[in-house]
């Protein structure tokens, strides 16, 4: 049987559509936490370009901190383990889910609980931040499109908060 039959998501699978904004659950993604002292060390292991600046994204890799990156990929790509090298590559695929917030009011919706100035948040930028009391990772995929990564256990609450804010 398909693995999809066993998936139990904490939020509804049907998108919530309100005036100027919609909230939907993204398809399951593979996620890896990448830790290394330098971006070069990761580039050697992964053989792809790794962004240097905190907040930058490149090829599905977001730089979250001076020694921390998040790789999100839809494809079933084999990941090197980095065994024996000064890097840590950890599968965190099931730790979080991704909510897609779309529409002209997308930034406004996120700013109901997130203290960042998302009007001046460049497309392609990613950061860890907070929504009310819930830690999230915001990735601006487009002018009117954000990906919000949230831990599964917080997702039901965040969905309720988003949909309540969107209905106002």
């Amino acid at each position, binding site marked *: 049987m398909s693995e999809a039959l066993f998936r139990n998501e904490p939020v509804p699978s049907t998108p919530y559509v309100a005036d100027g904004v919609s909230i939907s659950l993204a398809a399951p993604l593979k996620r890896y936490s990448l830790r290394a002292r330098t971006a070069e060390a990761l580039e050697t292991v992964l053989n792809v370009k790794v962004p240097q600046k*905190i907040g930058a994204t490149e090829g599905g890799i977001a730089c*979250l*901190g001076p020694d*921390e990156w998040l790789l999100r990929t839809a494809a079933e790509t084999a990941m090197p383990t980095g065994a024996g090298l000064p890097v840590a590559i950890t599968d965190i695929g099931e730790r979080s889910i991704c909510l897609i917030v779309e529409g002209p009011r997308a930034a406004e919706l996120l700013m109901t609980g997130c*203290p*960042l100035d998302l009007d001046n948040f460049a497309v392609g930028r990613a*950061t860890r*931040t*907070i929504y009310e009391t819930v830690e999230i990772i915001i990735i601006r995929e487009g002018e009117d499109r954000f990906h919000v990564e949230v831990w599964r256990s917080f997702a039901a609450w965040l969905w309720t908060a988003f949909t309540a804010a969107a209905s106002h």
Partner: protein
Amino acid sequence: MILIHCPYCDEKRPEIEFANAGQAHIARPLDPSGQSDAEWEAYLFIRANPRGRHHERWRHIHGCGRFFNAVRDTVTDKFETTYKAGEPRR
């Protein structure tokens, strides 16, 4: 809301993303077993509580995750400067 400059992200970020982590520049004694009880107590528990300029550790926990040092005025709550961990006291 106070904006705090994170020396790693190199931008001002909202206070709610940060956590205070107590007084800065407290070095663990290199030889713990050679310490007297009073010296060890001072290292573990005795902290400054100045009125005015205070060196503190802060962590950008809901951001880049890094600890850094800050100079904050305990009267006005204004941050004078922030700098990376490991840099000399300012």
